[in-house]
């Protein structure tokens, strides 16, 4: 605390330092506004009542939402997106939890290699992953099959789940699990009564982010959706190739809304965890 305070004092000790601090602050404010502005502009435009895109809009209305929700193809896309993301969320969170537990508690060699492999879908260009899966899917008639798209999305959602759950599991003291076992719990009991309650907030976070990963994913869906299972990002892509129209602003706002809700829920879960659960992390 005092270290940062004296750092502050040094920073402001000269007028040059003061000027520089103000300039840095102005620059950061400008950059942050620039980061958020595109998203805010899209949200505002989606409520525009004007016939073409003008900012700020002269009038406000829900006409683009009516257009969006009035079109059965867009409604189908919402349904596809929700179903696929829901299935992805269940697959990825379930598999990811088991794997994260094994990575944190397991004693085996080649852990580094396994980690690298499990995280590889984040690094390998999505276009490569998508084409690989498409090659297989087109041979086996799996294009346009929603559960299959969800399984494919689980490949890219799994690393996200793993990162979240591994750090949560590391914070659970293994002695609690040992104690539960001494008191007569079997492995399943230890899991249900100790591990799961302690990591539940992180499991919710993992589920939220795996849902979001699938909900926002475009590359794999683009290849696998076919005409039957178009998701929202795929439909946005198809219409953007034709023109940049305000209906997309309404669709985008829906996607942004889902992101905001997921982030808020995650934040709420963290708050809950900080308040309600004892910190079982050992000190540094």
């Amino acid at each position, binding site marked *: 605390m005092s270290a940062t305070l004296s*750092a502050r004092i040094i920073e402001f000790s000269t007028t040059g330092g003061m000027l520089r601090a103000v300039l840095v602050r102005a620059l*950061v404010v400008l950059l942050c506004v620039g980061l958020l502005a595109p998203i805010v502009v899209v949200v505002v435009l989606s409520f525009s009542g004007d016939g073409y*895109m003008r900012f700020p809009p002269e009038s406000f209305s829900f006409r683009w939402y009516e257009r969006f929700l009035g079109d059965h193809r867009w409604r189908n896309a919402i349904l596809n997106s929700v179903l696929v993301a829901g299935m992805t969320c269940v697959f990825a969170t379930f598999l990811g939890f088991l794997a994260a537990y094994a990575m944190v508690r397991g004693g085996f060699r080649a852990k580094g290699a396994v980690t690298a492999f499990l995280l590889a879908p984040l690094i390998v260009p*999505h276009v490569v992953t998508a084409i690989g899966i498409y090659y*297989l899917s087109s041979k086996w008639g799996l294009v346009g099959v929603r559960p299959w798209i969800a399984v494919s999305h*689980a490949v890219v959602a*799994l690393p996200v789940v793993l990162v979240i759950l591994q750090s949560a599991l590391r914070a659970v003291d293994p002695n609690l699990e040992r104690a539960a076992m001494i008191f007569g719990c079997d492995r399943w009991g230890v899991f249900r009564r100790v591990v799961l309650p302690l990591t539940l907030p992180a499991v919710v976070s993992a589920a939220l982010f795996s849902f979001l990963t699938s909900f926002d994913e475009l590359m794999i869906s683009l290849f696998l959706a076919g005409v039957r299972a178009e998701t929202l990002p795929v439909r*946005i892509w198809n219409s953007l*190739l034709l023109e940049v129209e305000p209906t997309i602003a309404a669709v985008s706002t829906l996607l942004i809304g889902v992101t905001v809700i*997921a982030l808020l829920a995650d934040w709420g879960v963290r708050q809950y965890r900080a308040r309600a659960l004892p910190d079982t992390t050992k000190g540094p």
Partner: protein
Amino acid sequence: MPLGRLGAFLLLGPSLLLLVLVFLVPIGWFITGALGELGSFADIREEAVAVLGSRAVLGAILNTNWIAFLVTVMVLLIGYPVAYALTRAKGIAFTLILVCIILPYFTSVIVRTYAWMVLLGRNGLINQALLALGIVDAPLDLMYNRLGVVIGMTYVLLPYMVLTLYSAMKAVDPRLLQAAEGMGASPLRVFLKVFLPLTLHGVIAGALIVFILGIGFFITPALMGGPSDIMIAMLIEREIELTQNWPTAALMTLVLLAVTLSLYAVYQRFANQTEGLAP
């Protein structure tokens, strides 16, 4: 509670199976299967030389590297001060800066790209503003060219850089900076001689991750680029969507994959260093 090797294997099994069956095998099968269509090894080599030496592919590889490089530089220039501010900020300022990074980070790439298309288009908001203010007489071409691609990709990739730099900067002991100041170093000198060297591994790790993700980019350049901004991922997609030319796509994929994985191996070294330094 420690797990035996068998237990760990059983728990890891489903995830490994998923990645092997829906990630490793499909990519491997696609590459070997598509190349197998060409015939013998000599045929593949001949085709590889023809494809990878062709004007279109060489041009795309050049474009890809150049665009990824420009984007990396832009992201670094913008990301460094933002990450620094995030390291120093407290309370509400910290939350605000974090929101400005995290919200775009978790917003769909297609939505972020669309947002910039709205801003940069010929009748886009920026041109409308510039015309209204009388700064320009005719709308500027801000999109469907390299400028648009670089702006869009910079926006999409910026959070990766900021978050990587943040973890590196957070690990720097502020007392070191104070000590340097106390011994009479100018702020610039403190930055150049203490802070920059201590965060350099973060800069390298961030630059590598942005470059790695940049060379595999598809969505943003495909929507915001012009005819001369074809990147390798777009060429691969086109070979399959338009001409169903699997062997050519497989050869380009192999190149992209090899470069990505080699750079990732280098990245791992710097990323581990970042983790090691974190408190």
